């Protein structure tokens, strides 16, 4: 499986007046792919928390609701990142999106990949600590912090995509 440009797309890229539009489209597609990767990592973290929930219910631990709240937060973040705006402004809009700005969006997404990996590791940690109440409590707080940081970066990206 590879990411390649079709003949039609290559033609589009050399047509004067159209190639800029096409290049932006390709960056947007890349942005979607990167966001997809972030969302998939968060979905994996969510599955880890679901496993943790089941283990927690098995040993009757007190943090069931705490894990459940973090799962919902992850679910919300996953949907937000997967369906985030791709940075499009029409011909008549006052604010225009240039290639450079679209690349900034990609940078945000790349940064979020790293954060999402970190979140996934913490979710795995929670899963591993299901039978240890004290360590579980700390792990929950750590994950909550990481989610808050992630949401901040995501909000900054959204503001940027909205031309603010």
């Amino acid at each position: 499986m590879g990411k390649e440009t079709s003949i039609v797309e290559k033609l589009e890229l050399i047509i004067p007046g159209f190639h800029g539009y096409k290049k932006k489209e390709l960056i947007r597609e890349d942005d979607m792919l990167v966001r997809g990767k972030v969302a998939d990592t968060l979905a994996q973290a969510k599955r880890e928390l679901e496993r943790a929930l089941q283990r927690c219910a098995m040993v009757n631990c007190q943090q069931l609701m705490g894990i459940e709240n973090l799962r919902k937060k992850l679910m919300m973040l996953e949907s937000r990142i997967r369906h985030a705006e791709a940075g499009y402004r029409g011909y008549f809009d006052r604010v225009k999106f240039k290639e450079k700005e679209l690349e900034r969006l990609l940078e945000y997404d790349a940064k979020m990949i790293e954060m999402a990996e970190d979140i996934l590791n913490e979710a795995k940690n929670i899963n591993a600590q299901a039978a240890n109440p004290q360590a579980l409590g700390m792990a929950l707080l750590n994950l909550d912090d990481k989610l808050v940081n992630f949401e901040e970066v995501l909000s900054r990206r959204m503001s940027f995509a909205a031309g603010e």
Partner: protein
Amino acid sequence: MVQVIEWVNPGEDEIIWRYPNEVIKWGAQLIVHEYEVAVFMRDGKIYDVLGPGRHTLTTQNLPLLYKLVGGSNSPFKATVIFVSMKQFQGRYGGETQTRELAPVKYYGVYWFKVADPVLFITEVVGGQSLYDTQDVTKFIRAYFNEGMMKHLSAYSIVDLFQNLDMVSTQVKVKLMEDFRRLGLELVDVKIEGVNTTDEWRQRLFWLMQTGNAQAVMQMDTVKQVAAELGKSPGAGMGTGMVLVPQLFQQPAQPAQPAQPYAGAPPAPQQPPQAAPAQPAAQQEICPYCGKPIPPGARFCPYCGHEIKRCPNGHIVPEGAKFCPVCGAKIE
């Protein structure tokens, strides 16, 4: 002309929709919206799950080719099934009992979404062309009722009302795997209402107040007797005065078995055992409304009737000259 395949105006509860035309031309344009995916099947096999965007479908239905091979009925069939990825709401409800065997009715809502479109189509939908939330609810109802019955029966009714969120989370955790097995994701479960009968509600209230199941059962019996006596206007009051205090007596303790005579000299007299502590105060009941009143009360706190007593403190009927319990003269 280019064939455009798109799910236009999906209904609120529709989860999947099958594009009705199976002869999809080469180069047909498939439009998939952000909130859905399209499963593309060719020659009966699933080829891909296509996400949001515009896709060009390549089938073997080249205009000349299929007419040449199959005439009007093309053998190169292709199917597009749209699956909505939004969250759907289903309802559940049923009846079970709590830890103290009180009957409870419960009902609520749950939210789910399709997690794995291929699994969902192959395991649940099959060849149907339209599938909605009612179908899923019908499919999953037994899992819900089983989970609810199991968890609600582990709680007392008071704990249940205080921990509804915990119960719903536990049910959700239990059902997650069942949903995942069908290619669905259970997003949330909420209990909207839990209810029991009036009779049980009163019984549980008194159980909480007194902490004594026997007293509550006695009270139930007295209430039933009072209700039955009320049907006989002539005998009601007098019989009630005699019968009701009797019903409040503690059941007699089983007598000690007699010692068989062995001819041996009597054992030295043991010091008398300390008598078991008597209940602090015998519960009294108002002869007019049948509700329990504080010991020695002169008026019923529920119906306001004056409670007449003999010099020994027994409740006596209005206008009586002698106490029906101890025979003392009423001044």
